[in-house]
C-alpha cells in the first residue's frame, strides 16, 4: 500500500527538525527571562549569539522543504505539510528574535539597576511557554482542537500585557527618572506578547493543514 517511502521518511525528518527548533525557542525565552530577572549580562550575550544558530536551522528547514516540493511534487495535504513547514519555521525564527530582544533589553538595563522586574512578565512567560508546548503537540499530532486552544491562551497573554503596560505607565508618572528602565521592561513585555502571537500563527498553520482553509486565531 505505502509507496513513496523515501518521501515519508523525509517528511518525518522535516517534522523532527521543526519540533526541535520549537523546543530551542522555548529554551531561549526561558533563558532570556532568567537573564532579565537576574541581571545576568553574560547569559544575555550567550542568547544573542545563539540566535544565529537558530537562523541557520530555519534556513535548513526551508531548503529541505523547497527541495522536497521540487522533487516530489506533492499535492493536497502533503503540499500543505511543506507549505506550513516554511511558515512555521519562519514563526519560530521570529520567536527566537523576540527572545533575543529580551536579552538585549537585559543588557540595556545593565547590572544593579535597582528596578524590580514586574512579576507579571514571569506570568506572561509561563503562559507563552505553555503555548509553545501546545503548538508543538498540535503540530506533531496535527490536532486542530489543541490548535484552537492557542487562541484562548493568546487572549490571556494579551490581557496581561495590557495590564502590565498600564501599570508601568503609571509608574513613569510617579518615577520619571526611571523612564528608561521602565521602557525596557515594557519592551520586554511586548516581546513576550509577540512571541505568543507567533505560536497562534502556528496554530493557524495547523488548521490550514487539516482543513485546507485559512483561519485567523489572532483576532
Amino acid at each position, binding site marked *: *500500500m*505505502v509507496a513513496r517511502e523515501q518521501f515519508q521518511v523525509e517528511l518525518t525528518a522535516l517534522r523532527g527538525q521543526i519540533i526541535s527548533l520549537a523546543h530551542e525557542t522555548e529554551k531561549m525565552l526561558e533563558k532570556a527571562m532568567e537573564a532579565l530577572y537576574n541581571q545576568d549580562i553574560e547569559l544575555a550575550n550567550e542568547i544573542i549569539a545563539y540566535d544565529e544558530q537558530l537562523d541557520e536551522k530555519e534556513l535548513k528547514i526551508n531548503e529541505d522543504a523547497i527541495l522536497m516540493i521540487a522533487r516530489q511534487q506533492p*499535492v493536497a495535504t502533503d503540499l500543505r505539510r511543506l507549505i506550513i513547514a516554511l511558515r512555521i519555521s519562519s514563526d519560530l525564527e521570529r520567536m527566537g528574535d523576540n527572545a533575543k530582544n529580551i536579552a538585549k533589553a537585559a543588557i540595556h538595563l545593565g547590572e544593579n539597576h535597582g528596578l524590580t522586574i514586574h512579576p507579571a512578565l514571569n506570568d506572561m512567560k509561563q503562559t507563552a511557554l505553555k503555548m509553545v508546548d501546545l503548538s508543538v503537540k498540535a503540530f506533531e499530532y496535527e490536532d486542530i482542537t489543541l490548535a484552537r486552544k492557542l487562541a484562548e491562551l493568546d487572549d490571556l497573554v494579551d490581557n496581561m500585557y495590557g495590564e502590565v503596560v498600564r501599570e508601568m505607565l503609571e509608574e513613569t508618572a510617579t518615577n520619571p527618572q526611571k523612564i528608561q528602565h521602565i521602557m525596557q521592561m515594557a519592551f520586554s513585555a511586548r516581546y513576550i506578547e509577540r512571541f505568543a502571537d507567533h505560536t497562534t500563527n502556528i496554530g493557524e498553520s495547523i488548521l490550514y493543514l487539516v482543513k485546507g*482553509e485559512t483561519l485567523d486565531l489572532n483576532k
Partner: protein
Amino acid sequence: MNKTATAKKPVFHVQDMNLWYGNNQALKNVNLEIPKNEVTAVIGPSGCGKSTFIKTLNLMIKRIPSVKLSGELHFNGQNILRDKVDLVNLRKQIGMIFQKGNPFPQSIYDNVAYGPRIHGMKKKKQLDEAVETSLKQVALWDEVKDRLNSSALGLSGGQQQRLCIARAIATKPSVVLMDEPTSALDPVSTLRIEQLISELKNQYTIVIVTHNMQQAARISDQTAFFLHGEIIEASDTDSLFSVPSDRRTEDYISGRFG
C-alpha cells in the same frame, strides 16, 4: 459522493451506469455529468475502469461481445444506451484519440481527409480547407504544409499524435475523447499536446483518461477519480487536488498507492 461542479450544460449525463465483461463487473453505479466545452479528466489506478468508461461514451465498448450494460447514458439529451443510434453518426460527433498516435499508412493529407471523405465530402477545395484548418488547429500545419503527400508514418511520435487529433477534429465533432494521449510521448511533445487541449476546449468538450496526475491537475476543469469500477470522487479539479473529500482520493493523488 459524486458531486460535479457543473455550471455549464452537460454534454453527457451518466446515471447509475453499470458494465460487465461477462460476469466481471467493471463499472459500478457510475454517475457523472460532463459539461460542455470543459476538460474532464478521468484518473485512477490500472484496472479501475477508466478506459472502459471512456470507451462507453462513444459506445465503442459495445464491440466487445461479452459486454453488458445497464443504466442511462445521455448524450445531448438522448439516452444512447436505450435508443437505437446511428454509430457512424455518433462517432462523427465523438472523436477519439488513443495512447499512441495511430496514423493510417497513408499520406498526411489523406489521414486528415479520411473522416470528411467517409462523411461525404468530395470536392477537393473543401477537403483542402478541412485539412488545412484541422492541421492549423493542432499547430502542425507549418511543420507539414510542404510535405502533405509524404507518409504520415515518417512523422515523429508527437507529430503523429497531433496528426491523429487533427484527423479526429476534421469531422467537426463536439466531443473529443482521449485515452492517455501523451503516455508514449516525451515531455516537450506532452506539453504541446496539453497546450493544444487547453486551446481546443473552446470548441470541443474533452474527456481525457490519464495516468499522469500532474497532467490532470494542469489541464482539466473537472476530475473524476475511479477505483474498482466506482467513481470515488468527482469534483472541480482545484478542489480535488487541494482538499479531496475522500481519504482514498487523497492517498491516490499523493502517490500512496496506484
